[in-house]
Protein backbone atom coordinates (compact mmCIF):
# COMPACT_ATOMS: atom_id res chain seq x y z
CA UNK A 1 0.00 0.00 0.00
CA UNK A 2 2.66 2.50 1.12
CA UNK A 3 4.99 1.91 -1.85
CA UNK A 4 2.22 2.63 -4.28
CA UNK A 5 1.91 6.19 -2.98
CA UNK A 6 5.13 7.42 -4.56
CA UNK A 7 8.07 9.00 -2.78
CA UNK A 8 6.81 12.59 -2.87
CA UNK A 9 3.58 11.77 -1.10
CA UNK A 10 5.37 9.53 1.35
CA UNK A 11 7.78 12.30 2.24
CA UNK A 12 4.90 14.72 2.78
CA UNK A 13 3.09 12.30 5.05
CA UNK A 14 6.24 11.57 7.03
CA UNK A 15 7.08 15.26 7.45
CA UNK A 16 3.61 16.13 8.66
CA UNK A 17 3.57 13.21 11.08
CA UNK A 18 6.95 14.21 12.43
CA UNK A 19 5.90 17.85 12.86
CA UNK A 20 2.74 16.83 14.70
CA UNK A 21 4.61 14.48 16.98
CA UNK A 22 7.25 17.08 17.74
CA UNK A 23 4.65 19.78 18.46
CA UNK A 24 2.57 17.62 20.77
CA UNK A 25 5.70 16.47 22.57
CA UNK A 26 6.93 20.06 22.95
CA UNK A 27 3.56 21.29 24.26
CA UNK A 28 3.31 18.49 26.81
CA UNK A 29 6.94 18.81 27.84
CA UNK A 30 6.49 22.54 28.43
CA UNK A 31 3.42 22.00 30.57
CA UNK A 32 5.07 19.30 32.68
CA UNK A 33 8.29 21.28 32.99
CA UNK A 34 6.64 24.54 34.09
CA UNK A 35 4.23 22.98 36.56
CA UNK A 36 6.85 20.57 37.89
CA UNK A 37 9.53 23.21 38.28
CA UNK A 38 7.27 25.62 40.18
CA UNK A 39 5.98 22.91 42.49
CA UNK A 40 9.46 21.50 43.20
CA UNK A 41 10.94 24.92 43.94
CA UNK A 42 7.91 26.20 45.80
CA UNK A 43 6.49 23.47 47.99
CA UNK A 44 9.55 23.03 50.28
CA UNK A 45 9.24 26.70 51.24
CA UNK A 46 5.64 26.44 52.34
CA UNK A 47 5.40 26.10 56.11
CA UNK A 48 2.54 26.66 58.50
CA UNK A 49 4.26 29.76 59.79
CA UNK A 50 4.59 31.10 56.26
CA UNK A 51 0.85 30.68 55.69
CA UNK A 52 -0.35 31.96 59.04
CA UNK A 53 1.68 35.09 59.82
CA UNK A 54 2.21 38.52 58.38
CA UNK A 55 5.61 39.86 57.30
CA UNK A 56 7.60 41.05 60.28
CA UNK A 57 10.52 43.45 60.04
CA UNK A 58 11.48 42.71 63.64
CA UNK A 59 12.17 39.03 63.14
CA UNK A 60 12.85 39.36 59.40
CA UNK A 61 10.32 36.66 58.50
CA UNK A 62 7.84 36.75 55.66
CA UNK A 63 4.32 35.44 56.00
CA UNK A 64 1.57 35.62 53.42
CA UNK A 65 -1.58 35.47 55.55
CA UNK A 66 -2.54 39.09 54.66
CA UNK A 67 -2.13 38.34 50.95
CA UNK A 68 -4.27 35.21 51.23
CA UNK A 69 -6.98 37.16 53.06
CA UNK A 70 -6.79 40.01 50.54
CA UNK A 71 -7.30 37.54 47.71
CA UNK A 72 -10.32 36.07 49.51
CA UNK A 73 -11.76 39.55 50.08
CA UNK A 74 -11.24 40.37 46.42
CA UNK A 75 -13.01 37.20 45.31
CA UNK A 76 -15.98 37.76 47.63
CA UNK A 77 -16.41 41.45 46.80
CA UNK A 78 -16.09 40.89 43.06
CA UNK A 79 -18.60 38.03 43.02
CA UNK A 80 -21.14 40.03 45.05
CA UNK A 81 -21.19 42.67 42.33
CA UNK A 82 -20.55 40.68 39.17
CA UNK A 83 -23.11 37.91 39.77
CA UNK A 84 -26.30 39.99 39.69
CA UNK A 85 -24.96 42.13 36.85
CA UNK A 86 -23.79 39.24 34.66
CA UNK A 87 -26.75 36.95 35.31
CA UNK A 88 -29.15 39.85 34.82
CA UNK A 89 -27.57 40.79 31.52
CA UNK A 90 -27.74 37.19 30.33
CA UNK A 91 -31.41 36.95 31.34
CA UNK A 92 -32.16 40.13 29.45
CA UNK A 93 -30.46 38.81 26.32
CA UNK A 94 -32.15 35.40 26.26
CA UNK A 95 -35.52 36.08 27.92
CA UNK A 96 -36.49 39.67 27.24
CA UNK A 97 -34.67 41.12 24.27
CA UNK A 98 -36.66 41.12 21.09
CA UNK A 99 -34.74 43.71 19.16
CA UNK A 100 -31.95 41.91 17.28
CA UNK A 101 -29.88 45.06 16.97
CA UNK A 102 -29.82 45.62 20.74
CA UNK A 103 -28.72 42.02 21.27
CA UNK A 104 -25.97 42.40 18.68
CA UNK A 105 -24.71 45.60 20.30
CA UNK A 106 -24.65 44.06 23.79
CA UNK A 107 -22.91 40.92 22.58
CA UNK A 108 -20.37 42.96 20.66
CA UNK A 109 -19.71 45.02 23.78
CA UNK A 110 -19.17 41.85 25.82
CA UNK A 111 -16.74 40.51 23.22
CA UNK A 112 -14.88 43.80 23.23
CA UNK A 113 -14.62 43.72 27.01
CA UNK A 114 -13.16 40.23 26.98
CA UNK A 115 -10.49 41.33 24.50
CA UNK A 116 -9.23 44.33 26.46
CA UNK A 117 -5.93 43.57 28.24
CA UNK A 118 -5.91 43.72 32.01
CA UNK A 119 -3.37 46.53 32.19
CA UNK A 120 -5.90 48.83 30.53
CA UNK A 121 -8.55 47.77 33.03
CA UNK A 122 -6.07 48.62 35.76
CA UNK A 123 -5.50 52.08 34.36
CA UNK A 124 -9.17 52.89 33.82
CA UNK A 125 -10.01 51.41 37.22
CA UNK A 126 -7.44 53.71 38.78
CA UNK A 127 -8.93 56.76 37.04
CA UNK A 128 -12.55 55.81 37.57
CA UNK A 129 -12.72 54.14 40.97
CA UNK A 130 -9.63 55.36 42.84
CA UNK A 131 -9.65 58.96 41.64
CA UNK A 132 -13.07 59.90 40.25
CA UNK A 133 -15.15 57.97 42.79
CA UNK A 134 -12.46 58.67 45.41
CA UNK A 135 -12.29 55.13 46.74
CA UNK A 136 -8.49 55.60 46.94
CA UNK A 137 -6.27 52.59 46.35
CA UNK A 138 -8.31 49.84 47.99
CA UNK A 139 -9.50 46.26 47.63
CA UNK A 140 -12.93 47.65 46.77
CA UNK A 141 -11.52 49.65 43.84
CA UNK A 142 -9.64 46.55 42.69
CA UNK A 143 -12.76 44.40 43.00
CA UNK A 144 -14.87 46.86 41.00
CA UNK A 145 -12.22 46.80 38.27
CA UNK A 146 -12.38 43.01 38.26
CA UNK A 147 -16.19 43.21 38.04
CA UNK A 148 -15.96 44.91 34.63
CA UNK A 149 -13.31 42.43 33.53
CA UNK A 150 -15.29 39.35 34.49
CA UNK A 151 -18.73 40.50 33.40
CA UNK A 152 -18.42 38.82 29.97
CA UNK A 153 -17.44 35.46 31.52
CA UNK A 154 -20.48 35.27 33.80
CA UNK A 155 -22.69 36.55 31.02
CA UNK A 156 -21.51 33.99 28.49
CA UNK A 157 -21.72 30.93 30.75
CA UNK A 158 -25.16 31.92 32.05
CA UNK A 159 -26.41 32.65 28.56
CA UNK A 160 -25.22 29.30 27.26
CA UNK A 161 -27.00 27.40 29.98
CA UNK A 162 -30.15 29.53 29.64
CA UNK A 163 -30.27 28.37 26.05
CA UNK A 164 -30.36 24.73 27.20
CA UNK A 165 -33.55 25.27 29.22
CA UNK A 166 -36.24 23.83 26.89
CA UNK A 167 -38.65 26.35 25.43
CA UNK A 168 -41.56 24.08 26.42
CA UNK A 169 -40.84 24.71 30.14
CA UNK A 170 -41.37 28.41 29.60
CA UNK A 171 -44.47 27.85 27.52
CA UNK A 172 -45.85 25.60 30.25
CA UNK A 173 -45.36 28.40 32.74
CA UNK A 174 -46.98 30.99 30.49
CA UNK A 175 -49.85 28.58 29.77
CA UNK A 176 -50.60 28.39 33.49
CA UNK A 177 -50.97 32.17 33.49
CA UNK A 178 -47.65 33.09 35.07
CA UNK A 179 -46.02 36.36 34.09
CA UNK A 180 -42.59 36.51 32.48
CA UNK A 181 -40.78 37.40 35.70
CA UNK A 182 -42.43 34.56 37.59
CA UNK A 183 -41.50 32.07 34.88
CA UNK A 184 -37.90 33.28 34.96
CA UNK A 185 -37.73 33.10 38.75
CA UNK A 186 -39.34 29.70 39.21
CA UNK A 187 -38.61 27.82 35.99
CA UNK A 188 -35.72 29.32 34.04
CA UNK A 189 -33.27 30.30 36.78
CA UNK A 190 -33.30 26.92 38.58
CA UNK A 191 -32.60 25.33 35.22
CA UNK A 192 -29.49 27.36 34.53
CA UNK A 193 -27.90 27.17 37.95
CA UNK A 194 -25.08 25.01 36.54
CA UNK A 195 -24.02 27.72 34.11
CA UNK A 196 -23.97 30.27 36.89
CA UNK A 197 -21.85 27.99 39.10
CA UNK A 198 -19.41 27.25 36.27
CA UNK A 199 -19.17 30.95 35.53
CA UNK A 200 -18.47 31.67 39.20
CA UNK A 201 -15.70 29.10 39.37
CA UNK A 202 -14.08 30.40 36.19
CA UNK A 203 -14.32 33.94 37.55
CA UNK A 204 -12.70 32.92 40.82
CA UNK A 205 -9.88 31.38 38.78
CA UNK A 206 -9.37 34.58 36.85
CA UNK A 207 -9.45 36.74 39.98
CA UNK A 208 -6.88 34.55 41.73
CA UNK A 209 -4.58 34.76 38.71
CA UNK A 210 -5.04 38.44 37.93
CA UNK A 211 -2.29 40.92 38.67
CA UNK A 212 -1.91 43.75 36.16
CA UNK A 213 -5.39 45.15 36.84
CA UNK A 214 -4.77 45.14 40.59
CA UNK A 215 -1.36 46.81 40.66
CA UNK A 216 -2.71 50.37 40.58
CA UNK A 217 -6.17 49.76 41.99
CA UNK A 218 -5.66 47.52 45.04
CA UNK A 219 -2.05 48.38 45.86
CA UNK A 220 0.79 46.56 47.59
CA UNK A 221 0.06 46.68 51.35
CA UNK A 222 0.55 43.61 53.54
CA UNK A 223 -1.52 44.74 56.55
CA UNK A 224 -3.65 42.18 58.37
CA UNK A 225 -7.28 43.35 58.35
CA UNK A 226 -10.77 42.08 59.00
CA UNK A 227 -13.21 41.94 56.09
CA UNK A 228 -14.82 45.38 56.26
CA UNK A 229 -11.63 47.16 57.19
CA UNK A 230 -9.74 45.14 54.59
CA UNK A 231 -12.10 45.98 51.74
CA UNK A 232 -11.67 49.72 52.19
CA UNK A 233 -7.90 49.67 52.63
CA UNK A 234 -5.16 48.84 50.12
CA UNK A 235 -3.91 45.27 50.01
CA UNK A 236 -1.79 43.03 47.78
CA UNK A 237 -3.35 39.88 46.38
CA UNK A 238 -1.21 36.73 46.14
CA UNK A 239 -0.21 37.50 42.55
CA UNK A 240 0.75 41.09 43.31
CA UNK A 241 2.69 39.90 46.37
CA UNK A 242 4.54 37.40 44.17
CA UNK A 243 5.43 40.16 41.73
CA UNK A 244 6.67 42.49 44.47
CA UNK A 245 8.70 39.80 46.24
CA UNK A 246 10.30 38.60 43.00
CA UNK A 247 10.84 41.84 41.13
CA UNK A 248 11.38 44.47 43.81
CA UNK A 249 12.75 42.54 46.77
CA UNK A 250 14.53 39.57 45.21
CA UNK A 251 12.91 37.13 47.65
CA UNK A 252 12.75 34.26 45.18
CA UNK A 253 12.05 31.51 47.72
CA UNK A 254 8.96 33.38 48.88
CA UNK A 255 7.95 34.07 45.28
CA UNK A 256 8.19 30.40 44.33
CA UNK A 257 6.21 29.37 47.40
CA UNK A 258 3.42 31.77 46.39
CA UNK A 259 3.69 30.57 42.78
CA UNK A 260 3.22 26.96 43.91
CA UNK A 261 0.17 27.93 45.95
CA UNK A 262 -1.28 29.85 42.99
CA UNK A 263 -0.59 26.94 40.69
CA UNK A 264 -2.36 24.44 42.96
CA UNK A 265 -5.27 26.86 43.38
CA UNK A 266 -5.77 27.58 39.68
CA UNK A 267 -5.40 23.92 38.71
CA UNK A 268 -8.00 22.91 41.32
CA UNK A 269 -10.34 25.69 40.28
CA UNK A 270 -10.13 24.86 36.57
CA UNK A 271 -10.58 21.15 37.12
CA UNK A 272 -13.57 21.72 39.38
CA UNK A 273 -15.18 23.95 36.74
CA UNK A 274 -14.94 21.11 34.23
CA UNK A 275 -16.21 18.62 36.79
CA UNK A 276 -19.20 20.76 37.75
CA UNK A 277 -20.09 21.09 34.08
CA UNK A 278 -19.89 17.30 33.60
CA UNK A 279 -21.88 16.64 36.80
CA UNK A 280 -24.79 18.77 35.69
CA UNK A 281 -24.63 17.42 32.15
CA UNK A 282 -24.99 13.90 33.53
CA UNK A 283 -27.82 14.88 35.83
CA UNK A 284 -29.68 16.46 33.01
CA UNK A 285 -29.15 13.26 31.06
Amino acid at each position, binding site marked *: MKESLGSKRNRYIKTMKFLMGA*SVFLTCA*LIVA*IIGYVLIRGIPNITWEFLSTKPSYLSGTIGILPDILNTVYLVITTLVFVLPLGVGAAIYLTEYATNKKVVAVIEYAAETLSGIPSIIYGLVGMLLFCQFMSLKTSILAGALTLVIMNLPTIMRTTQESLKTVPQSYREGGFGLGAGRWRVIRTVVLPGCIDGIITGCILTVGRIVGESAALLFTAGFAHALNGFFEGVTSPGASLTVALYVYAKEQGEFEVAFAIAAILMVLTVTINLSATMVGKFFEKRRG
Partner: protein
Amino acid sequence: MKSKKQLIENIIHGVFLILGLITVACVLVITIYLLVAGIPAINKIGFMKFMFGTKWAPTASEPAYGILPFILTSVYGTSGAIILGVPVGFFTSVYLAKFASPKMKKIVETAVSLLAGIPSVVYGLVGMIVLVPAVRKVFNLPDGASLFAAIIILAIMILPSIIKVSMTSLEAVPPEYEEGSFALGATPVETYFRVSVTAAKSGIVAAIVLGVGRAIGEAMAVIMVSGNVANMPSLFQSVRFLTTAVSSEMSYVSAGSLHQQALFSIALVLFFFIMLINACLNFFLKRDKTN
Protein backbone atom coordinates in the same frame (compact mmCIF):
# COMPACT_ATOMS: atom_id res chain seq x y z
CA MET B 1 -55.24 44.36 39.44
CA LYS B 2 -54.22 43.36 35.97
CA SER B 3 -52.61 46.71 35.31
CA LYS B 4 -50.66 46.52 38.55
CA LYS B 5 -49.24 43.16 37.56
CA GLN B 6 -48.43 44.58 34.16
CA LEU B 7 -46.71 47.52 35.79
CA ILE B 8 -44.50 45.26 37.89
CA GLU B 9 -43.62 43.21 34.84
CA ASN B 10 -42.68 46.38 33.00
CA ILE B 11 -40.50 47.60 35.85
CA ILE B 12 -38.68 44.26 35.98
CA HIS B 13 -38.25 44.35 32.23
CA GLY B 14 -36.70 47.79 32.59
CA VAL B 15 -34.34 46.61 35.33
CA PHE B 16 -33.10 43.77 33.13
CA LEU B 17 -32.70 46.12 30.19
CA ILE B 18 -30.45 48.31 32.32
CA LEU B 19 -28.44 45.27 33.44
CA GLY B 20 -28.10 44.25 29.81
CA LEU B 21 -26.87 47.64 28.78
CA ILE B 22 -24.21 47.76 31.51
CA THR B 23 -21.64 46.03 29.29
CA VAL B 24 -22.23 48.65 26.63
CA ALA B 25 -21.85 51.35 29.27
CA CYS B 26 -18.58 49.79 30.45
CA VAL B 27 -17.13 49.80 26.94
CA LEU B 28 -18.19 53.42 26.47
CA VAL B 29 -16.76 54.48 29.84
CA ILE B 30 -13.43 52.79 29.12
CA THR B 31 -13.21 54.36 25.67
CA ILE B 32 -14.16 57.82 26.86
CA TYR B 33 -11.82 57.72 29.85
CA LEU B 34 -8.89 56.65 27.71
CA LEU B 35 -9.65 59.31 25.11
CA VAL B 36 -10.06 62.06 27.68
CA ALA B 37 -6.95 61.03 29.57
CA GLY B 38 -4.83 60.23 26.54
CA ILE B 39 -5.48 62.96 24.00
CA PRO B 40 -4.15 66.03 25.89
CA ALA B 41 -0.57 64.74 26.02
CA ILE B 42 -0.63 63.77 22.35
CA ASN B 43 -1.79 67.31 21.53
CA LYS B 44 0.87 68.90 23.68
CA ILE B 45 3.72 66.78 22.40
CA GLY B 46 2.52 66.64 18.83
CA PHE B 47 1.15 63.53 17.16
CA MET B 48 4.11 62.84 14.90
CA LYS B 49 6.66 63.54 17.61
CA PHE B 50 4.82 61.26 20.01
CA MET B 51 4.16 58.34 17.67
CA PHE B 52 7.40 58.43 15.71
CA GLY B 53 9.89 59.91 18.16
CA THR B 54 12.61 57.39 18.88
CA LYS B 55 13.63 58.73 22.27
CA TRP B 56 11.70 58.27 25.52
CA ALA B 57 13.24 60.36 28.31
CA PRO B 58 10.42 61.98 30.30
CA THR B 59 12.56 62.76 33.33
CA ALA B 60 15.51 64.28 31.45
CA SER B 61 16.17 68.02 31.68
CA GLU B 62 14.96 68.27 28.09
CA PRO B 63 12.19 65.66 28.20
CA ALA B 64 11.49 63.60 25.08
CA TYR B 65 8.30 61.64 24.62
CA GLY B 66 8.74 59.38 21.63
CA ILE B 67 7.01 56.01 21.85
CA LEU B 68 8.17 54.44 18.59
CA PRO B 69 10.49 52.10 20.57
CA PHE B 70 7.52 50.74 22.53
CA ILE B 71 5.32 50.36 19.46
CA LEU B 72 8.02 48.55 17.52
CA THR B 73 8.91 46.36 20.49
CA SER B 74 5.27 45.34 20.87
CA VAL B 75 5.00 44.62 17.15
CA TYR B 76 8.26 42.66 16.99
CA GLY B 77 7.58 40.82 20.23
CA THR B 78 4.11 39.80 19.09
CA SER B 79 5.31 38.75 15.65
CA GLY B 80 8.10 36.69 17.21
CA ALA B 81 5.67 34.98 19.56
CA ILE B 82 3.36 34.22 16.63
CA ILE B 83 6.22 32.84 14.50
CA LEU B 84 7.30 30.50 17.31
CA GLY B 85 3.90 29.71 18.83
CA VAL B 86 1.61 29.27 15.83
CA PRO B 87 3.33 26.29 14.14
CA VAL B 88 3.52 24.38 17.43
CA GLY B 89 -0.07 25.24 18.29
CA PHE B 90 -1.31 24.46 14.78
CA PHE B 91 0.24 21.00 14.52
CA THR B 92 -0.82 20.16 18.08
CA SER B 93 -4.41 21.15 17.36
CA VAL B 94 -4.56 19.13 14.13
CA TYR B 95 -3.20 16.12 16.00
CA LEU B 96 -5.68 16.53 18.86
CA ALA B 97 -8.68 17.20 16.63
CA LYS B 98 -8.07 14.48 14.05
CA PHE B 99 -5.49 11.87 15.06
CA ALA B 100 -5.43 11.48 18.83
CA SER B 101 -7.22 8.62 20.57
CA PRO B 102 -10.04 9.82 22.85
CA LYS B 103 -7.98 9.11 25.96
CA MET B 104 -4.88 10.88 24.67
CA LYS B 105 -7.03 13.80 23.54
CA LYS B 106 -8.60 14.15 26.97
CA ILE B 107 -5.25 14.13 28.74
CA VAL B 108 -3.58 16.67 26.46
CA GLU B 109 -6.66 18.90 26.40
CA THR B 110 -6.74 19.00 30.20
CA ALA B 111 -3.03 19.78 30.26
CA VAL B 112 -3.49 22.60 27.76
CA SER B 113 -6.30 24.11 29.81
CA LEU B 114 -4.01 23.95 32.86
CA LEU B 115 -1.42 25.89 30.87
CA ALA B 116 -4.10 28.49 30.12
CA GLY B 117 -4.93 28.79 33.81
CA ILE B 118 -1.41 29.56 35.04
CA PRO B 119 -1.28 33.20 36.22
CA SER B 120 0.96 35.43 34.15
CA VAL B 121 3.14 36.39 37.12
CA VAL B 122 4.05 32.71 37.48
CA TYR B 123 5.19 32.65 33.85
CA GLY B 124 7.15 35.79 34.59
CA LEU B 125 8.79 34.25 37.64
CA VAL B 126 9.80 31.08 35.81
CA GLY B 127 11.06 33.20 32.92
CA MET B 128 13.06 35.38 35.27
CA ILE B 129 14.71 32.49 37.10
CA VAL B 130 15.13 29.90 34.34
CA LEU B 131 14.85 31.51 30.93
CA VAL B 132 16.75 34.77 31.44
CA PRO B 133 19.93 33.13 32.81
CA ALA B 134 19.68 30.45 30.10
CA VAL B 135 19.47 33.09 27.36
CA ARG B 136 22.46 34.89 28.89
CA LYS B 137 24.55 31.72 28.92
CA VAL B 138 23.58 30.35 25.51
CA PHE B 139 24.06 33.61 23.63
CA ASN B 140 26.89 34.86 25.81
CA LEU B 141 25.26 38.16 26.73
CA PRO B 142 25.90 40.51 29.64
CA ASP B 143 22.21 40.25 30.58
CA GLY B 144 19.62 37.73 29.44
CA ALA B 145 16.60 39.96 30.05
CA SER B 146 15.79 40.76 26.44
CA LEU B 147 13.24 40.85 23.65
CA PHE B 148 14.17 37.24 22.87
CA ALA B 149 13.26 36.02 26.36
CA ALA B 150 9.96 37.91 26.18
CA ILE B 151 9.17 36.35 22.80
CA ILE B 152 9.65 32.83 24.17
CA ILE B 153 7.45 33.49 27.20
CA LEU B 154 4.75 35.06 25.02
CA ALA B 155 4.90 32.14 22.57
CA ILE B 156 4.22 29.72 25.44
CA MET B 157 1.45 31.91 26.83
CA ILE B 158 -0.50 32.12 23.56
CA LEU B 159 -0.27 28.36 22.87
CA PRO B 160 -3.47 27.40 24.74
CA SER B 161 -5.67 29.97 22.96
CA ILE B 162 -4.31 28.97 19.55
CA ILE B 163 -4.76 25.25 20.23
CA LYS B 164 -8.29 25.61 21.62
CA VAL B 165 -9.73 27.90 18.95
CA SER B 166 -8.22 26.00 16.00
CA MET B 167 -9.36 22.69 17.49
CA THR B 168 -12.94 23.92 17.75
CA SER B 169 -12.97 24.98 14.14
CA LEU B 170 -11.22 21.80 12.89
CA GLU B 171 -13.77 19.67 14.72
CA ALA B 172 -16.61 21.58 13.08
CA VAL B 173 -15.49 20.58 9.55
CA PRO B 174 -18.31 18.49 8.01
CA PRO B 175 -17.26 14.82 7.84
CA GLU B 176 -18.54 14.61 4.23
CA TYR B 177 -15.57 16.71 3.09
CA GLU B 178 -13.15 14.27 4.66
CA GLU B 179 -15.04 11.19 3.44
CA GLY B 180 -14.98 12.59 -0.08
CA SER B 181 -11.26 12.98 0.12
CA PHE B 182 -10.78 9.45 1.51
CA ALA B 183 -12.93 8.06 -1.29
CA LEU B 184 -10.61 9.69 -3.81
CA GLY B 185 -7.72 7.72 -2.32
CA ALA B 186 -6.11 10.33 -0.09
CA THR B 187 -4.44 9.12 3.10
CA PRO B 188 -5.56 10.50 6.49
CA VAL B 189 -2.60 12.86 6.75
CA GLU B 190 -3.28 14.28 3.29
CA THR B 191 -6.99 14.56 3.95
CA TYR B 192 -6.71 16.30 7.28
CA PHE B 193 -3.98 18.72 6.22
CA ARG B 194 -5.25 19.53 2.74
CA VAL B 195 -9.04 19.28 3.14
CA SER B 196 -9.90 19.81 6.80
CA VAL B 197 -7.34 22.55 7.42
CA THR B 198 -8.46 24.38 4.29
CA ALA B 199 -12.07 24.13 5.37
CA ALA B 200 -11.22 25.38 8.86
CA LYS B 201 -9.04 28.20 7.53
CA SER B 202 -11.06 31.09 8.95
CA GLY B 203 -11.17 29.54 12.40
CA ILE B 204 -7.43 28.98 12.40
CA VAL B 205 -6.81 32.56 11.33
CA ALA B 206 -9.14 33.67 14.14
CA ALA B 207 -7.01 31.61 16.54
CA ILE B 208 -3.89 33.40 15.36
CA VAL B 209 -5.54 36.81 15.69
CA LEU B 210 -6.63 35.89 19.21
CA GLY B 211 -3.02 34.98 19.95
CA VAL B 212 -1.90 38.36 18.64
CA GLY B 213 -4.35 40.07 20.98
CA ARG B 214 -3.15 38.05 23.96
CA ALA B 215 0.50 38.70 23.20
CA ILE B 216 0.19 42.44 22.62
CA GLY B 217 -1.83 42.93 25.81
CA GLU B 218 0.34 40.89 28.17
CA ALA B 219 2.10 42.99 30.78
CA MET B 220 3.18 41.18 33.92
CA ALA B 221 5.09 38.25 32.44
CA VAL B 222 6.81 40.52 29.95
CA ILE B 223 7.86 43.12 32.49
CA MET B 224 9.70 40.41 34.45
CA VAL B 225 11.79 39.09 31.55
CA SER B 226 12.30 41.93 29.07
CA GLY B 227 14.68 44.11 31.08
CA ASN B 228 12.50 47.18 30.69
CA VAL B 229 14.89 49.76 29.20
CA ALA B 230 13.38 52.08 26.58
CA ASN B 231 15.67 50.98 23.73
CA MET B 232 14.77 50.67 20.08
CA PRO B 233 14.01 46.94 19.76
CA SER B 234 16.82 44.52 19.10
CA LEU B 235 16.57 40.81 19.74
CA PHE B 236 19.15 40.52 22.50
CA GLN B 237 18.74 43.89 24.14
CA SER B 238 16.67 45.03 27.06
CA VAL B 239 13.40 46.43 25.69
CA ARG B 240 10.13 47.92 26.84
CA PHE B 241 6.67 47.05 25.46
CA LEU B 242 3.62 49.32 25.25
CA THR B 243 2.08 47.50 28.21
CA THR B 244 5.20 47.62 30.35
CA ALA B 245 5.82 51.26 29.49
CA VAL B 246 2.51 52.05 31.18
CA SER B 247 2.93 49.79 34.19
CA SER B 248 6.57 50.43 35.02
CA GLU B 249 6.35 54.20 35.40
CA MET B 250 2.77 54.62 36.60
CA SER B 251 3.63 53.94 40.24
CA TYR B 252 6.10 56.79 40.70
CA VAL B 253 4.94 59.41 38.22
CA SER B 254 3.54 62.60 39.76
CA ALA B 255 -0.18 63.08 39.24
CA GLY B 256 -1.23 65.60 36.59
CA SER B 257 2.22 65.96 35.00
CA LEU B 258 2.77 65.71 31.27
CA HIS B 259 4.67 62.51 32.00
CA GLN B 260 1.57 60.88 33.52
CA GLN B 261 -0.62 62.13 30.70
CA ALA B 262 1.84 60.65 28.22
CA LEU B 263 1.49 57.28 29.95
CA PHE B 264 -2.27 57.50 29.42
CA SER B 265 -1.61 58.28 25.78
CA ILE B 266 0.47 55.11 25.52
CA ALA B 267 -2.49 53.19 26.94
CA LEU B 268 -4.70 54.85 24.34
CA VAL B 269 -2.38 53.70 21.54
CA LEU B 270 -2.43 50.17 22.99
CA PHE B 271 -6.23 50.32 23.19
CA PHE B 272 -6.38 51.37 19.55
CA PHE B 273 -4.27 48.36 18.54
CA ILE B 274 -6.48 46.04 20.59
CA MET B 275 -9.66 47.42 19.01
CA LEU B 276 -8.17 46.84 15.58
CA ILE B 277 -7.30 43.25 16.49
CA ASN B 278 -10.77 42.67 17.96
CA ALA B 279 -12.38 43.86 14.75
CA CYS B 280 -10.22 41.41 12.76
CA LEU B 281 -11.06 38.62 15.19
CA ASN B 282 -14.79 39.23 14.85
CA PHE B 283 -14.49 39.32 11.08
CA PHE B 284 -12.77 35.94 10.91
CA LEU B 285 -14.97 34.30 13.55
CA LYS B 286 -18.08 35.41 11.71
CA ARG B 287 -16.72 34.13 8.42
CA ASP B 288 -15.90 30.82 10.09
CA LYS B 289 -19.49 30.55 11.30
CA THR B 290 -21.12 31.38 7.98
CA ASN B 291 -18.91 28.87 6.17
